[in-house]
């Protein structure tokens, strides 16, 4: 069985070694962080890989064979990134990205709150692999204390050969972008910088910087123990392994779950107890993700290849179920306004464009005069015109909304809305002080 069942007693090490779920998350949903002792009891010690350049290159090759890709949303092959940073022109540095600026996503926070040592294993391991003396773990404020404690436990046990520092993230949406993260760690400014050069070439202090999502690092720590073939016992040949998903909205048990990649979308929803109401739409991937029709997408595999024909992608693992009683246009307008407000404010097309687009969507949602041609022109003018991909992501999500909610647009034009419940399926944090 490849599901996480919250009533099952703790999964033993034998089942884990056999490749079953859960791999990252403990079976018991409720509970505090695994202590160092509990972590070592469940997973065993981290193998001492990387004492010399040969074994480091061999492990990076093993990661390549495992086919691990980034779990932060972009899905970049991890081995390639490790190799690029390891062969850089200067002593590298590792930054573990646990910022999770996506308001609806909770997987990184839950992972850090329950299995901080798995993440710290991965961070220290990645640092050894690329030859970095230092790893900085940037986490959401909610889990800072837990991660601090875990790091302190490791220091007392002299577990890691690299220096591990923990920092808090600001919580802004763009703060998790790689160059923004480097800017935050280095200068205290959580804003993206113009790329080139990429952070893997020149990042923190001008050094090659490995920025990796905390979930990716947790998978890395398990691959070190169990190998590439073990990793591939779940998932698809092209996209192997498991991933964490955050399931919210009209489902019976919203929360964070672990699933193998490639299982049907409807089964992923069943992890959370299945839909609690008839669904109007699914938002898959995150606030940069894709609105999709549940009827057509339910049978598709939850993977990049599986969702591509529908124009979507798993992204950062968010699945939001919009009930039929909610107005998708109102939800989209709220998210668009949030994304506009979260712009770093550095590039005109993003600042002004997203602001205008959000205004137009608000007018649409409220049933006021709406100019779809002008909105589409603006979407085209904003796409790809910023220093980072913030405007691109917003445009993609909004375009998918205009497709999926086309019938609702027609209704709003005639003064009707089928939304009966108050908006707020998709969480939008209140405006922070500048």
């Amino acid at each position, binding site marked *: 069985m490849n599901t996480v069942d919250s009533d099952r007693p703790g999964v033993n090490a034998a089942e884990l070694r056999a490749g079953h779920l859960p791999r990252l998350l403990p079976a018991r949903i409720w509970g505090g962080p695994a202590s160092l002792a509990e972590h070592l009891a469940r997973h065993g010690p981290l193998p001492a890989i990387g004492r010399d350049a040969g074994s480091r290159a061999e492990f990076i090759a093993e990661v390549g064979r495992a086919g691990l890709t980034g779990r932060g949303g972009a899905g970049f092959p991890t081995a390639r990134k490790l190799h690029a940073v390891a062969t850089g022109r200067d002593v590298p540095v590792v930054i573990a990205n646990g910022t999770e600026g996506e308001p609806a996503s909770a997987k990184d926070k839950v992972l850090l709150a329950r299995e901080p040592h798995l993440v710290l294993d991965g961070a220290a391991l990645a640092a050894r692999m690329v030859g970095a003396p230092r790893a900085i773990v940037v986490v959401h404020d909610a889990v800072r204390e837990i991660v601090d404690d875990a790091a302190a436990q490791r220091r007392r046990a002299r577990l890691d050969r690299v220096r591990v520092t923990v920092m808090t993230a600001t919580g802004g949406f763009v703060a998790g972008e790689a160059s923004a993260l480097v800017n935050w760690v280095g200068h205290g400014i959580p804003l993206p910088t*113009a790329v080139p050069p990429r952070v893997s070439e020149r990042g923190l202090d001008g050094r090659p910087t490995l920025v990796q999502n905390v979930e990716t690092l947790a998978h890395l720590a398990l691959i070190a123990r169990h190998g590439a073939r073990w990793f591939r016992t779940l998932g698809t040949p092209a996209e192997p392994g498991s991933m964490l998903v955050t399931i919210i909205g009209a489902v019976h048990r919203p929360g964070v779950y672990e699933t193998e990649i490639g299982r049907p979308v409807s089964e992923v929803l069943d992890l959370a107890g299945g839909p609690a109401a008839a669904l109007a739409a699914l938002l898959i991937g995150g606030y940069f993700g894709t609105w999709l029709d549940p009827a057509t997408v339910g049978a598709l595999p939850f993977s990049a290849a599986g969702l591509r024909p529908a124009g979507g992608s798993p992204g950062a693992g968010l699945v939001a179920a919009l009930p039929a009683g909610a107005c998708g246009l109102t939800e989209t307008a709220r998210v668009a306004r949030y994304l506009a407000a979260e712009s770093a404010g550095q*590039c*005109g*097309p993003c600042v002004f*464009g997203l602001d205008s687009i959000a205004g137009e969507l608000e007018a649409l949602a409220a049933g006021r005069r709406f100019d779809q041609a002008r909105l589409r022109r*603006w979407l085209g003018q904003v796409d790809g015109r910023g*220093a980072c991909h913030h405007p691109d992501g917003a445009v993609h999500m909004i375009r998918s909304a205009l497709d999926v909610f086309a019938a609702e647009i027609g209704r709003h034009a005639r003064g009707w809305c089928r939304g009966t419940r108050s908006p707020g399926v998709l969480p939008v944090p209140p405006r922070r002080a500048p």
Partner: protein
Amino acid sequence: MTGRARLRVDPIACDARGLCAEVLPELITLDDWGFPIILARDVPPGLRHEAAEAVRLCPTLAPRLDHTARDR
């Protein structure tokens, strides 16, 4: 002229002053908020001079002209 010249604008440095679009309207047009849209990245030889002028004139030095060797 050998090699290619590619025009791009640093979106962070750009402040929508609009000078670039004045001197190179063939390749640069302004969006609804006054910011430049590069219509074609490759600058034809006949417009190289104007492109260099656009780079020189911009008060915030946002446009960049990257010269690359002729493609293999």
